[in-house]
């Protein structure tokens, strides 16, 4: 069995190849389970992708130590997610919403809108900036690797470029907020 540290290294070094290997080994088991428990192949894919996103974030964020293989862990997560989904599909709203609930929902919606505005601006950054920011802040690739991928001669150059990209994002988000409040 691969250690979590080795798996993390593999995901950082070659995400596509590592995820493809995990996909090939695990998805058939997940599909079989979901289809045997009232779901479709599409349901299986959705659940598996949700599990892989959780898995990626936990492994690269070093908040998970695997005590079994990655496939065993993922199948376990998928089973839980699918059980939750089945229960969500059959559940009926038992209580009516109070004013307090509505207030909380409105606050959550505002926060979500702010995040979505940032998301929109991320999509408008050039490919290079978007790649650098996502590589560092989401995919958690080391700056050495980002420098090599984008052909910066030094890690310092890559670091400066990363902050330039962050500044661009910040300025566009601020401009959006100013326009919205004007």
């Amino acid at each position: 069995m691969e250690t979590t540290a080795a798996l993390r290294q593999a995901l950082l070094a070659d995400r596509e190849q590592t995820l493809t290997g995990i996909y090939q080994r695990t998805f058939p088991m997940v599909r079989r389970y979901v289809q045997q428990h009232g779901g479709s192949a599409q349901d299986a894919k959705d659940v598996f992708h949700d599990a892989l996103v959780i898995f990626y974030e936990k492994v690269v964020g070093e908040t998970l130590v695997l005590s079994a293989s990655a496939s065993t862990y993922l199948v376990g997560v998928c089973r839980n997610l699918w059980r939750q989904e089945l229960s969500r599909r059959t559940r009926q709203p038992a209580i009516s919403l109070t004013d307090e609930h509505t207030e909380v929902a409105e606050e959550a919606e505002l926060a979500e809108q702010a995040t979505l505005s940032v998301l929109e601006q991320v999509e408008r950054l050039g490919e290079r900036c978007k790649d650098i920011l996502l590589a560092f802040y989401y995919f958690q690739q080391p700056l050495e690797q980002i420098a090599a991928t984008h052909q910066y001669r030094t890690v310092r150059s890559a670091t400066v470029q990363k902050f330039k990209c962050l500044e661009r994002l910040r300025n566009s988000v601020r401009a959006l907020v100013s326009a919205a409040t004007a």
Partner: protein
Amino acid sequence: MRPTLEYLRQLERHLLGQHTAAEAEAWRVRQLLDSELAADADTQQLLYQGLQVAGRQQLRRELELIHARLERPSRRQTWWQAATSPLRSLLVRRSRGH
């Protein structure tokens, strides 16, 4: 690094909890003197949240591509191929027999 970028770096170190004890203390003092600091930190936090969501979307797109590649019809038998497979095997065996 120019001052604006250095400022972003300082905000990042604060938000990611990378400040040393001395830097954290200096930060607390600075917060008392600079009314913009908290608002700038909130904006930067918002950027990180947006980048998390954007990163998840990117990962999901990559997973869709992997799925599409692995589940291409050519890799799996269509119902027609599955239904006619025994017949095709028989024909192959017979042609080899001749």
